[in-house]
């Protein structure tokens, strides 16, 4: 199995609080992605990274920020959590554009 770990796996937080999700990889893969999965919407890309300190926005980036200061870590921050951000969040990594993307186990985030 690819070495990719998401933390925490579950979190409940209150509206208005900041939340940071961590994606850690041991594969030295260049590309990293954050998605949210909601019923009826599939996987929607939030932000992605194509190298250390190189990140870009996905289709649903509002309210989220990311950082990648090291190859192995990609952090997703909800600056001020809202109920609409209740979701399952997946991190993915890939070595190259044409290679398989490996996914973490997901983080279930509930904003109350």
């Amino acid at each position: 199995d690819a070495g990719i770990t998401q933390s925490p796996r579950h979190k409940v937080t209150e509206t208005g609080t900041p939340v940071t999700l961590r994606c850690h990889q041991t594969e030295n893969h260049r590309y990293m992605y954050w998605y949210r999965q909601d019923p009826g919407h599939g996987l929607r890309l939030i932000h992605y990274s194509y190298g250390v300190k190189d990140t870009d926005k996905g289709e649903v980036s509002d309210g989220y920020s990311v950082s990648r200061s090291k190859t192995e870590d990609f952090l997703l921050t909800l600056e001020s959590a809202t109920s609409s951000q209740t979701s399952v969040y997946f991190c993915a990594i890939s070595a190259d554009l044409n290679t398989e993307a490996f996914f973490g186990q997901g983080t279930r985030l509930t904003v109350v």
Partner: protein
Amino acid sequence: AQTVTQSQPEMSVQEAETVTLSCTYDTSENNYYLFWYKQPPSRQMILVIRQEAYKQQNATENRFSVNFQKAAKSFSLKISDSQLGDTAMYFCAFISGANSKLTFGKGITLSVRP
């Protein structure tokens, strides 16, 4: 902007039969890659098959094959001899050679009936 469309939300197939899942995409790029991923109830994402746009030959992986129509921007997945373990959500995905944005469709829930 690149988009991936899976218009069928659900499908059902009898065990041992063949089923085809549809996917269309939109891009102005000429160099790109297409994927089908499977997500069983465990939520784990599993690569089923991939296709390079520059290859005319359709990819096959055992019981799984694709019908890649580049001009029509269509990328359908055919599952032959369906098995109960094929029950899952299936996602079509696209990535362009011009950027590294991996885009998924909304997915289709496939149920295999015994």
